[in-house]
């Protein structure tokens, strides 16, 4: 899972692109000619008078032959005699829209709708224009269209994008689904659809959508990377490898592709391939910090700390201003018990980037690792004085106090409780903070509150054994035992799975090789 953050960044980068380029998505209307002949669905009002077919045909003919100026002129002339003909106004709207005169076109469509509110053509035209300008009016028009034509794929597609832009993926996805193959002509919309599915954690469905984009744009490596990233997120690393293989076998694989591949290989247990992939990535992009961080993670997982330190040191040589690399190396040094050097790295990280608090957190954790909870607390509290709202530091403080054995009712316990609550409020997705808070609530008899925190931690990570166990304990205390058998099963399964994953991780240990290339600074 080392590139999970990278995968997520890749996916959510699409969001940025879509949000600033609404015009990148546009859905073409059906042929104006055929549509115009069926344009009016509602009966004419008592005040309307329709232009004869002899007036309509020249206009539609001009439109179909792309003589938009002529078509516009013809509609002007016809409207003098038939000012209340919604069809004429619609045709004028189409002519103006085709000329790029959006304002005039919209005005024409709106005139048509004022006369005949359910005029399909006018609704479609106005909706398209409002959609393209990202106007809030687009939603209303599209909804009106769908009432008249519930299965119109274009309307669904546009509503999908509208909802996506508003951040409402829950509403967007059903519309995207009903848009069907229309989306295949709009990669950005297809990406929006897939992105929404990712946000809704419907990863299998997201994979299916991205597979469409890969099929449609087989030559675009970006599509394969996106698909592979989602496959990784959906814990389908073998599929991710299959997706990436054409790129890896060719010459077009960039560092990002190799980085994704490394994560996929590791997740399948093929650590040698993962190491090789990361090596390729580093060769291609030796100044990419995240690659060295991934290697640090890999070496940590395999308890191969010296190799990790060596590689991260190479990274530091390439990027001497990277605070993250100093933090990573410091953490690996802690594992070797080299606390002095680790401390030096954490200090350096802080110098390079005083705004980040991870180095402070790491220093606190190093003190814990060295079995010095008092020093750990002092370190964390010193940093908290400068950054009193840092969620991670607050969580650490709460956990250290709890580990020290603060008893309920004491000032230390109250301090731990306050810190944990504040950490959770600042970072609701910091599962560790919720775990500590749950424990503190259990210790102080606030069982209901403990249950709530455990449930939220489990939402964040359904395999969180600690949260599952504490939830069981809390429910036992309250006598609400109905859920317990299922939770016991889940806990047992989570334990088995964790043991299996550990066995897989432990199959390999990384060592520095004898290959001359492998000992050079850029060759892990």
């Amino acid at each position, binding site marked *: 899972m080392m590139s999970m953050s990278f995968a997520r960044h890749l996916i959510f980068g699409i969001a940025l692109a879509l949000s600033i380029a609404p015009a990148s998505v546009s859905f073409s209307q059906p042929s104006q000619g055929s549509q115009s002949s069926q344009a009016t669905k509602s009966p004419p009002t008592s005040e309307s008078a329709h232009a004869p077919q002899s007036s309509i045909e020249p206009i539609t003919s001009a439109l179909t032959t792309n003589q938009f100026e002529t078509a516009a002129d013809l509609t002007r002339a016809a409207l003098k005699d038939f000012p209340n003909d919604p069809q004429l106004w619609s045709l004028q709207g189409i002519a103006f829209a085709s000329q790029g005169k959006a304002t005039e076109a919209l005005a024409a469509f709106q005139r048509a709708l004022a006369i005949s509110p359910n005029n399909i053509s006018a609704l479609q035209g106005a909706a398209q224009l409002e959609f393209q300008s990202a106007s809030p009016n687009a939603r209303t028009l599209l909804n009106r269209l769908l009432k008249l034509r519930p299965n119109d794929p274009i309307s669904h597609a546009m509503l999908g994008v509208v909802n996506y832009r508003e951040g409402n993926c829950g509403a967007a996805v059903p519309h995207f689904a009903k848009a069907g193959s229309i989306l295949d002509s709009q990669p950005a919309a297809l990406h929006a659809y897939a992105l929404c599915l990712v946000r809704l954690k419907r990863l299998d469905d997201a994979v299916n959508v991205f597979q469409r984009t890969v099929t449609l744009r087989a030559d675009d490596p970006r599509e394969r990377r996106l698909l592979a990233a989602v496959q990784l997120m959906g814990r389908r690393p073998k599929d991710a490898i299959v997706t990436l293989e054409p790129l890896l076998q060719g010459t077009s694989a960039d560092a990002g592709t190799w980085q994704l591949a490394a994560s996929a290989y590791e997740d399948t247990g093929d650590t040698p391939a993962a190491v090789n992939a990361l090596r390729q990535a580093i060769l291609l992009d030796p100044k990419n910090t995240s690659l060295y961080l991934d290697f640090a993670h890999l070496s940590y997982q395999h*308890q191969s700390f010296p190799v990790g330190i060596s590689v991260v040191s190479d990274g530091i040589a390439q990027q001497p201003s990277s605070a993250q690399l100093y933090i990573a190396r410091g953490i690996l040094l802690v594992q070797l018990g080299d606390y002095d050097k680790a401390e030096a790295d954490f200090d350096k990280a802080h110098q390079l980037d005083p705004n980040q608090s*991870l180095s402070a957190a790491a220093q606190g954790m190093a003190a814990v690792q060295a079995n010095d909870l008092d020093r750990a607390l002092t370190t964390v509290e010193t940093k908290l004085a400068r950054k009193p709202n840092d969620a991670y530091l607050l969580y650490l403080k709460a956990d*250290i106090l709890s580990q020290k*054995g603060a008893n309920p009712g004491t000032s230390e316990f109250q301090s731990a409780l306050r810190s944990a609550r504040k950490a959770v409020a600042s970072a609701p997705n910091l599962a560790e903070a919720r775990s500590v808070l749950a424990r503190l609530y259990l210790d102080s008899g606030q069982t209901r509150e403990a249950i709530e925190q455990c449930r939220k931690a489990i939402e964040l990570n359904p395999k969180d*054994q*600690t949260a599952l*166990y504490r939830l069981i304990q809390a429910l036992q205390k309250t006598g609400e035992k109905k859920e317990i058998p299922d939770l016991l099963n889940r806990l047992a399964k989570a334990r088995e799975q964790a043991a299996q994953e550990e066995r897989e991780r432990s199959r390999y240990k990384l060592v520095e090789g004898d290959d001359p290339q492998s000992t050079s600074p850029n060759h892990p």
Partner: protein
Amino acid sequence: MKISRRAFVNLSIAASVSAHASRLLGQGVSTHTAKAQPKLAPSGRPFNAHFTDVAKQAGLTAPVIYGKPEYNDYILEATGCGCAFIDYDNDGWMDLFVLSGTRIEGNPEGATNRLYKNNRDGTFTDVTEKSGLHDTGWACGVCVGDYNNDGFEDLFITYYGQNKLYKNNGDGTFSDITKAAGLLGDDTRWGAGCTWVDYNRDGHLDLFVSNYLQFDMNRIPKPGANVNCTWKGIPVECGPRGLPRGVHSLYRNNGDGTFTDISAAAGIASQRGSYGMTVVSADFDEDGWPDIYVACDSTPSLLFMNNHDGTFREEGVVRGVALSEDGQEQAGMGIGVGDYNLDGHIDLFKTHFSEDTNGLYRNDGKANFEDVTRTARIGVETRYICWGTGIVDLDNDGLPDIFFVSGSVYPHLEKTLTQYPNKNPRTIFRNLGNGTFEELISEAGPAISERHSSRGCAFGDFDNDGDLDVLIVNINEPPSLLRNDMKGANHWLKLKLVGTKSNRSAIGARVVVRYGKKLQAQEVLSQSSFYSTNDTRLHFGLGAEKIADISIRWPNGAHEELKAVAADQLIVVKEGSGIVTGQGWSKAAKPGASGR
């Protein structure tokens, strides 16, 4: 690209303060670790117990052979064995029974279980041969109980191989009646802990045996062969993780000298997910029926709750005694049983591996346990692999303390990693009376700070002076016999219970003693500590109180009350008859008559 919080947490997982996050990869033992709590300033209160190892002068000079002293190839050599206080001849003086193992390479001379008869003068005589208890093998646990209710305590010993039941003939000898009793197994099994328990309250002691793992020397990998055969990167004997788990057994006493295996019918055999070690039976939910708790290594410990109908339901996880307080497996070995907080409920103390805390579990009286390790300040000690243990009042101040022994399973490790010595001191956690404990090592006498690689230990009053002494198994050394020489004027009371309708040993009897404003519950146990059996005369320290009221609930359900019993004596209580005198037990010498 910024390092995300989540990536940071993943990266620094072993450095995280969360107890569950520090998982040591690549080893065969439970991965739960915990950081030691800082110690508070010493209370400064004097500790009136003082321990001296008198084993040598007492005549306990034969070493307990268990594997090679310098290195173990197999886990079989590492786990060790237990010991027992037993008055096999009913003369009121506790005799000693010390198990032994052997060596893979062959049985060394002198490797045998040993019975030591108490000479009543501070010395013991090795009567192993005369008693018929000479046996060589990989003995593990011992449980003492009068299975045939003839008034003489019998012995059941678990082995890797074949467990054995020895009937006490009443004349100083024992007979191996394993086969006749129907306890001969078809295959080689690793019997670990055991307990006598009258699970169906019919007056006959039934037998529960835990099994550790399925061990086949021809198929076990060698040290260093895989991730379960290394520790801290050093090759060590494999396991228990990676090896098949044992299957536990329950045998019903048919009342005619034979037993029937009812493991499956009772719901015991279906529990196959744990490496069973020490077994304790006690009525944890105080419903009058004995339950069974099994400390398990690197897997969830088991709590079998009695359904009153011949079956049990396993509820260790839901009742809070199977896993650590954060839901992780621990290496559970020994069990201490007692009422540490004087609320009338039986609590548990479980010993674990190094770099983890031992666990103190407070019982609410309904068998719901809360892990109070840290709030009780037990978490200050994580250096040692801990084994035999007890919740016992060592200084007679009326507050049960905690005692445990320790020793490495990797004797060669200290050559490379000096911070993991093979031999460790004993440890006392004295009860401060406010729910917390403080650690004492050197403060309790030279015998506590002496270093050995120990396993089982048993608590009893071998010199009948009213305080608790400790018998300890030391691997490849003679045992230790820690004589307690109390100072001060704290009072005490001992109870010997004799069942009539209940089983003769009164195993499962629950006693609550009220002294002053305090009350304390204990049960007559079969096995506890690590694979060991304590002196079954219940010992209560009374502090400054000189009288006590006693409530007894017999295993068969009868109740008995004794009011205003004077302190500083052993009383014998016979079911249905109250305090009896003139019995062998009650003729035991008064304090000071031991000849010291």
